């Protein structure tokens, strides 16, 4: 935030962001166990993925449905190279590099061919390309593992059995899983700061100007196609990085975890809940969404049990854990109703004169 020159503005928002980041930074020690680690890693990955989408939608005003495709390219880049070349850091770098290159080229091609058309047509083009890519990934089973996906091994240091420190001070154990988590967390922090820097740069300002009034931006001398295409490429590269980190964490890549349209819906929900055109909204939105997705059912189960035990059977039925998706939907509707500009949009103060 200090590096980017774009502070969150607003005490409550700053406190919330600090809380989320600190909890994520200490998650392996605060909440031991595989489920909390999975939840924390997913928050990190989604914060990066949604921030990259916010760069596209919130700053450049481009509606794309191909973001999951770039996420998938990153995930498959890692999976294919680690599966084919064996578990080495070289394979990870090669896979990441190849994924970034492929994602950038795809985004460049889509941008150059489609960004001249109106927003809705561009969205349709990206939807078609993403669907075709998902089918292709399923069909090329010799390369991608088809519907089963690819399970692969990661370098020794990142495996669960690896121990960097065992029973250290305060009984702390740092395993390969902990290192994997910090690889994800630190990469996300660095990439997020880079994105903040980008949106606060003159390029970011031009993107905002184009989103608001493309003709006026042109009349000032800025080429819309050039800026929009570059934004598309940058967003694709960051999404590919998020996909690669997700694959490294899961040690598996398949259509469901990296190319599913459900991921695209999650991205859209998170960006709306968090707040568009803020980047910080991605962190808050991802944290709330992933936590609700993973713990709402458990919370409802506890409430259901407690109400049943107290004899309030009728009321307890509302909290039946089987209805958790209904409540998740209601929560989303309420959050959009009360925070139309997203949580960050609502909490963010106007800059001081």
């Amino acid at each position, binding site marked *: 935030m200090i590096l980017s020159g774009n502070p969150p503005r607003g005490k409550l928002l700053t406190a919330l962001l600090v809380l989320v980041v600190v909890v994520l930074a200490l998650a392996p020690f605060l909440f031991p166990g595989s489920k909390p680690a999975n939840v924390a890693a997913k928050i990190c990955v989604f914060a990066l993925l949604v921030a990259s989408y916010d760069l596209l939608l919130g700053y450049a005003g481009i509606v794309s449905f191909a973001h999951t495709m770039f996420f998938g390219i990153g995930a498959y880049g890692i999976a294919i190279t680690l599966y084919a070349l064996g578990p080495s850091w070289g394979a990870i770098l090669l896979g990441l590099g190849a994924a970034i290159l492929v994602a950038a080229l795809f985004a460049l091609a889509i941008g150059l061919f489609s960004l001249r058309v109106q927003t809705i047509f561009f969205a349709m083009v990206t939807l078609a390309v993403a669907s075709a890519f998902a089918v292709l990934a399923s069909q090329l089973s010799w390369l991608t593992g088809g519907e089963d996906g690819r399970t692969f091994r990661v370098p020794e240091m990142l495996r669960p059995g690896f121990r960097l420190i065992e029973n250290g001070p305060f009984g702390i154990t740092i395993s390969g899983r902990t290192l994997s988590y910090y690889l994800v967390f630190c990469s996300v922090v660095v990439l997020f700061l880079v994105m903040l820097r980008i949106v606060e740069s*003159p390029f970011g*300002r*031009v993107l*905002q100007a184009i989103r608001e009034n493309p003709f006026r931006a042109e*009349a*000032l001398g800025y*080429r819309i196609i050039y800026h929009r295409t570059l934004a598309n490429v940058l967003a694709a590269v960051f999404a590919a990085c998020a996909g690669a980190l997700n694959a490294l964490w899961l040690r598996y890549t398949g259509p469901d975890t990296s190319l599913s349209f459900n991921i695209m819906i999650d991205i859209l929900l998170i960006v709306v809940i968090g707040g568009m055109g803020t980047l910080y909204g991605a962190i808050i939105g991802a944290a709330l969404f992933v936590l609700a997705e993973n713990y709402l059912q458990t919370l409802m189960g506890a409430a259901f049990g407690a109400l049943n035990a107290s004899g309030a059977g009728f009321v307890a039925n509302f909290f039946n854990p089987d209805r958790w998706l209904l409540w998740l939907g209601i929560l989303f509707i309420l959050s959009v109703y009360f925070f139309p500009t997203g949580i960050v949009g609502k909490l963010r103060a*106007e*800059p001081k004169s």
Partner: protein
Amino acid sequence: MTDALLTLSGVHTHIGRYHILHGVDLAVPKGRTTMLLGRNGAGKTTTLRTIMGLWPASQGSIHFDGAQIDKAATPDIATSGVAYVPETMAIFSDLTVKENLVLAARAGAPDEKRLEWIFGFFPALKKFWLSRAGTLSGGQKQMLSIARAIVEERKLLLIDEPTKGLAPAIVSALIECLREIARSGATILLVEQNFRVAQDVGDLVHVMDSGRIVHSGAMADLAVDESLQKRLLGLSLDSHQ
């Protein structure tokens, strides 16, 4: 006109199936303020937008500073030295006043001395330097819109109805600003409905009607010829003084 910075020769413009400009011929001499007057719907805004390439000319030619620009893209026309202030005060409301001006300064950060010169006309911009442009009043937005066009020295300023909907006190400040800009040697093509403003700042005048130039001459001559005003613009000088 030999010292013309901008010339339009037989320019026609179509917007969809509508034929708006019917062979516009006009010249804007260097270092002068040229007024483009006419009733609503005469084609004044279309003329400015055609010069900027926002609505390309379907026929005819436009020359600016020795180069033909009627086939050029809008960003190229802008970077060749034409600044455009549209009538809709098209500022970027999500950006701050500072960011709006920085965006318009294509050569890098705005020059401090020039900024102070601009703040001399529009002190409100200094006051709200870090405020979002969307929170400014209508008059302040218009000031920002003009400030953005003059934040760097441009060869030609195209300004579309800068006084539209503004309070009289702000109009007076704007007239003073336009005069000062003109005194600095700028070339201006100004569309204006307010005849008093046109009279105060214009050196030359072109009057449009139904997509054609129907009168060209010195602004001072039109200002004293009430019958010509009535005939061309349908207005009485007395009612605008």
